[in-house]
């Protein structure tokens, strides 16, 4: 079975969906169809589009590889955004970028639809930094210290997954493992999930950092899990807690999938895992689209979307597999 680590447990095949999820996904597919006809597309849209179509129709109905080759490739490198998509922001010249996740999207789609695969492992090899982290400095020269943890671990997982298909040929894997365990437990479920998956691909899960169980306990909220704990918002330099009285972490099906995946792989008691699963299932059965948005303190407008294609897909996975 083809795996998609971004949504652990997701099957890439025709899937029985809750009616609310099905309608939401169909609406999203219709929206992106319009964008694609205007050449406005991103690699993350292609990935979600392929999965959504496979779930709904049993197969991809859109020529995703054709789209990626035509709009999401420049100088033999996959792009995260098409030029037209880049115009959604005013004079955003940085639209032309080939981060690890764009390479991964292309690689994953090529494998999934059994298109002719290019040697993306070589590109990933070129992205391995002396520190052992995997990223493309051409996207940004941001130093490792100030890169987001989730970015570092997600790119490590994606890079390792691609490299593993080539048996890490010529790659000193110890360097990658050393980088992956060089940061203590972060307190973010996404970062820890991608760290663990990277170690899985590297065959080194025994090196996993400690403290994950404590983190999972902190990240629990009423319906499931959030990616971060408000109480752990601490200034890196002052060391003091931020003023968090108005900050609220919200339920995220994606974060919940990651938490459950980590819990199943680590030494979390089974009855506790079952309790978590039961709680999130109850919530999603009652309210399949009950995926709240974040807010900026007291302001009423939503700070970013609550429901997104990836969150709805994750919610569907939670109902199907857990």
């Amino acid at each position: 079975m083809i795996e998609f680590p971004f949504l652990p447990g997701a099957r890439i095949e025709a899937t029985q969906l809750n009616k609310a999820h099905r309608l939401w996904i169909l609406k999203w597919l219709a929206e992106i169809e319009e964008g694609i006809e205007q050449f406005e597309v991103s690699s993350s849209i292609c990935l979600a589009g392929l999965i959504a179509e496979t779930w709904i129709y049993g197969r991809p109905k859109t020529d995703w590889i054709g789209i990626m080759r035509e709009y999401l490739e420049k100088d033999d490198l996959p792009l995260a955004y098409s030029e037209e998509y880049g115009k959604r922001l005013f004079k955003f010249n940085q639209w032309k970028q080939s981060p690890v996740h764009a390479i991964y999207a292309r690689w994953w789609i090529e494998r999934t639809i059994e298109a002719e695969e290019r040697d993306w492992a070589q590109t990933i090899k070129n992205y391995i930094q002396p520190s052992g982290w995997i990223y493309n400095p051409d996207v940004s020269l941001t130093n490792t210290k100030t890169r987001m943890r989730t970015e570092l671990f997600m790119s490590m997982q994606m890079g390792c997954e691609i490299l593993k298909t080539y048996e890490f040929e010529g790659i000193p894997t110890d360097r990658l493992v050393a980088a992956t365990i060089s940061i203590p437990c972060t307190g973010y479920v996404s970062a820890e999930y991608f760290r663990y998956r990277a170690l899985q691909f590297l065959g080194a899960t025994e090196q996993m950092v400690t403290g994950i169980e404590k983190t999972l306990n902190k990240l629990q909220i009423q319906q499931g899990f959030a990616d971060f704990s408000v109480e752990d918002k601490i200034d890196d330099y002052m060391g003091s807690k931020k003023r968090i009285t108005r900050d609220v972490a919200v339920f995220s099906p994606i974060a919940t999938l990651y938490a459950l995946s980590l819990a199943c792989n680590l030494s979390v008691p089974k009855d506790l895992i079952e309790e978590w699963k039961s709680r999130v299932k109850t919530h999603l059965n009652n309210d399949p689209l009950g995926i709240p948005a974040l807010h900026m303190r007291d302001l009423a407008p939503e700070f970013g979307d609550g429901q997104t294609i990836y969150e709805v897909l994750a919610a569907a996975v939670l109902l199907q597999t857990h």
Partner: protein
Amino acid sequence: MRTSSLNEVGIGGYMCDKLGWILIEDFLAKTKGRVIGQVRSDARIRTYSANYKFEEVADNRIAIQRIDGSGDRIEIKSRIPIDRELVAFFGLYDGDGAKGAEKPTSPGFIHVNVSFSQREPNLVRFAVDQFRRLFSHQISFTFSLGEDSAYFMAGSGLRQLENHYGGQLPDPIPLQDLRPILTPADKRYLEEPRRVHGTNEEHLAFYYQHKEIMQRILTEQKMKELRSTGIILEKFDRVTASLRRPFKKGAREPGGSSRSDELHLGGLNGLGELFLKIMYELGESILTNTQQSPQGLVRWNDCPSNLGEKIDIQDFFANNPYGSIDNERPVLKICGTELRGQWPRSIERVLKPNFRVDPLFAYASGLYLAEGATPKNELFAMYSRRPKGLSVEFTCSEDEGISIMLKALSHIFPQKDVMKAWKIKVGSQYFPELVTIGLKHGVPMLRGGNSGDGKLRTMEISLALKSWALESFPSIQPFADRYSHVEPTGAGVARVHFWASSSLGKWLFPLMMYTVFHGTVTNPKEGFIID
């Protein structure tokens, strides 16, 4: 109802060009002394309230104090005439003034102490003058310089400290000898993780070993700066230094500075709520362009947009001392119905020929001087030397501020020129939220620039926040297509930052400076303190 006459003697005793009145006594009588309102700042909505008693005293003045007798009793005019300097002062206070601190026992409720954070000497002098005009000599000032003690651990701070010791620091004393008994704050400090060189014990020992000397150095520095501004300290005025433990105030490395300058007002205890009420009533009536403020505390002589000095732009830039920059003046000509102007070595701009220094422009001028991104020293130095970096940029966490500034710009320039582009700045406290938003769209959060505070590379996150900004800041909706990106910053809530072409600065800033300082500084070339 009392009527007003033109050119009445204003507060402080000089003739003022009155725009309206702050009707203190009428307002307190109507509300039975109860002052209640909301403060919207930093994405928080908080409530303030206070009950006052008041009585008429001589010369159309009233004495006000909290009804429970707490706080100070102050005498002010029962009706305060409003001139444009006062409006600009409230704009300045809106940007740099304290809006109140939340009561730990009552979340969402604040108590208000009047204080003002600003370092620029000309602005401090202006604020002090305006406070004294409002409250005469019943108030006192405490000028406080705050700094992170890490400033003294390297660089110029360390040199100052070494000089004080005669060239070399004494040997370090262990923390346990300096503080055998630690306070709870010390214990918390020692337990906190921080990404800096050295140990918490060493940093805390440094702090206690040199605390008094560091405070003395800072106090002397502040005294020296105040002397250079020409501010005369009165009997009860004080100068102090507030020193924080290393890295607790914002220094990111040894020698790093996180200076803040505060102006605390004495003699106004308990009256902060009334002061805030005046500011918000004034601002609201300006923004909605209504003759009377929502609760009637402010009454303008006409619709605010019909008030204020009319200025012929051509004449201003040809003859007014404030219309010259570094001894140069622009060329202006009428082309059909348009006025076109060009400064030497700059691009031609279209301007509105007639301009009025209405209350909105006065308020915006004060607000921009407080919060605008243009280097303040350049604004004061531009009359005597060629200025650098006169960018037109403004950041605000509330729509009211953005709206006032855009309206002020459109007093002078065509609507299409008032904004080049805008972005959303988000402080590090909300990076976890940005990461979550990225995950919701299947992507990681990719930062830009060496230290990560450049343009966010992840378009999905920037696009996801666009509708939040347009809803929270309706005044930028006409410019929705000029949204550029999200920018991660060190601190602060998510807020909008917009900018216009830098070539507008040479037209805008002379008019703003004229608006705020014309009444007190006749010759801008010589009347300002320049670093």
